[in-house]
């Protein structure tokens, strides 16, 4: 009896559990095609109205690039997409309704084989609300045009934030640029060695997500060596990055000096003592002349 009551309760809750009320949802979030120049493709998008009101959904297409942290940035000025992709007509989504819309894409025949990224945008506008806050939901569309892929990653900048480090937290600047016509996945290492080429510190670099063609990734890696015994001296800091399908390696190396703070204090202390001593000697000589 109790078990039966429990079952009824569970099933009852499953049916009566309120759905999270979000204004608008979109799927899929990302789509990626590899297509031949001149080919046609239909791209599908599903939109659902989870709000308690009917919504008018408008569609538009924007260009997408990546910022220096790897986040998507939408560009309203991209106009090539108007020629390539047909935007669907606006639709009315009733409460709880889900609809599928199609974006028809035709690639030019003479298109350069690279990765093109677009944002398929669904905007909700409520009737009678002209001033306020609106939501644009984006489905990312990547189109890699078939052809010869050339992979090249450049290290634009690899430097230490300070060439002389007085503590064991060494901060660096790393600027990478994707010079290829394809997206690059990357993995990297930071290797610190002494002048005898002995590795004193090695760590995987967190390079973030894959890098779109023509974009930069700017990072500030930190080598935290607080727990390591690190003698004073000159060290090399090497960055090694493996990238792409061809697993190429790009390397850069800089040198920096580690001067512990206590050494600085001793040197400053000795300089003060030396200055006092010199002052004393000069004073004595002057007194003797008198």
């Amino acid at each position, binding site marked *: 009896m109790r078990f039966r009551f429990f079952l009824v309760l569970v099933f009852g809750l499953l049916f009566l559990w309120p759905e*999270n*009320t*979000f*204004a*608008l*949802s*979109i*799927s*899929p*979030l*990302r*789509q*990626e*095609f*590899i*297509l*031949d120049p001149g*080919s046609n*493709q*239909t791209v*599908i998008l599903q939109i659902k109205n989870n709000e308690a009101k009917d919504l008018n959904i408008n569609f538009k297409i924007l260009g997408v690039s*990546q*910022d220096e*942290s*790897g*986040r*998507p*940035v*939408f*560009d*309203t000025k991209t106009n090539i997409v108007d020629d390539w992709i047909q935007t669907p007509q606006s639709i009315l989504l009733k409460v709880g309704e889900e609809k*599928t819309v199609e974006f028809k894409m035709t690639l030019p025949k003479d298109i350069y*084989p690279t990765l093109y*990224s677009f*944002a398929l945008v669904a*905007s909700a506008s409520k009737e009678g*609300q002209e*001033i*306020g*806050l*609106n*939501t*644009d*939901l*984006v489905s*990312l569309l990547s189109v*890699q045009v*078939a*052809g*010869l*892929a050339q*992979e090249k990653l450049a290290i634009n900048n690899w430097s230490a934030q300070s060439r002389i480090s007085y503590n064991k937290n060494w901060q660096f600047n790393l600027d990478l640029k994707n010079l290829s016509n*394809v*997206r690059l996945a990357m993995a990297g290492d930071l290797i610190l060695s002494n002048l005898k080429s002995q590795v004193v510190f090695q760590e995987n670099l967190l390079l973030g*997500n*894959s890098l*779109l063609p023509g974009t930069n990734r700017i990072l500030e890696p930190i080598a935290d060596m607080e727990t390591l015994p690190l003698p004073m001296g000159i060290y090399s800091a090497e960055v090694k990055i493996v990238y792409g*399908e*061809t697993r*190429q390696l790009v390397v850069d190396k800089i040198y920096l000096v580690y001067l512990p703070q206590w050494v600085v204090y001793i040197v400053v202390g000795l300089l003060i003592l030396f200055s006092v001593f010199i002052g004393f000697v000069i004073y004595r000589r002057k007194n003797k002349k008198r």
Partner: protein
Amino acid sequence: MGIRLVLNYSMRTKLILLLVVIIIFYPLPSSSIMSSTHYTILNDQIGMGAGISEGGVYSLRDSSGALISAGVVDGNTYEIRSGFYFGDNGTLSVTISPSTIDLGALNTSTVNTTETTITVNTDSETGYTLAVGSVSAGGLTDVSDGQVTAGSEEFGFVGTGDDCLLSASTSTAVTASLPIASHSSAINSSEINLVFQAAISNSTPPTASGQKNISFTASANFY
């Protein structure tokens, strides 16, 4: 010398029955979402072909090959061949509450504020980025010194929340493409609280208003 397995009639029958059951109920690889009346298969993983196959009453989004359909790799270059599709069938939902901002009647002696909360929900493994999409032209001058001050014509906002990229104390100008929040993995109900701030000076035209039309753009992050 060998071992001879002798099965009697009953054992043989049971074994055959077991094999038949295994064959019938063996789980075939399937990652599709299917639905009818208009039949849809979303992103099934099949061996050949890609893109969308369309008929009168069905559509098919399929994929084949690896993430990059690489051909012959030759040093730094390789051939990319067509025929690949990948779709991330996750969802992204956004709600804004309240969805209107009205800073009320502005005067030169106070900084007027109004608050809204944006809630983002996504099962995308790469997380999401929320940015300002567009801002209506006109209205008050954007804040430029990090502080909306009474008596100066300025409009800006501050933000809080675990994923918020805005400062909670320094006022930022509301400009198109400005990233507001980001998260690098799936998240349930990420809340971003925005406080809009406005002030006017003596030279502000009486027609100037604290009301703005702002759109926010939410998307999954790239792989």
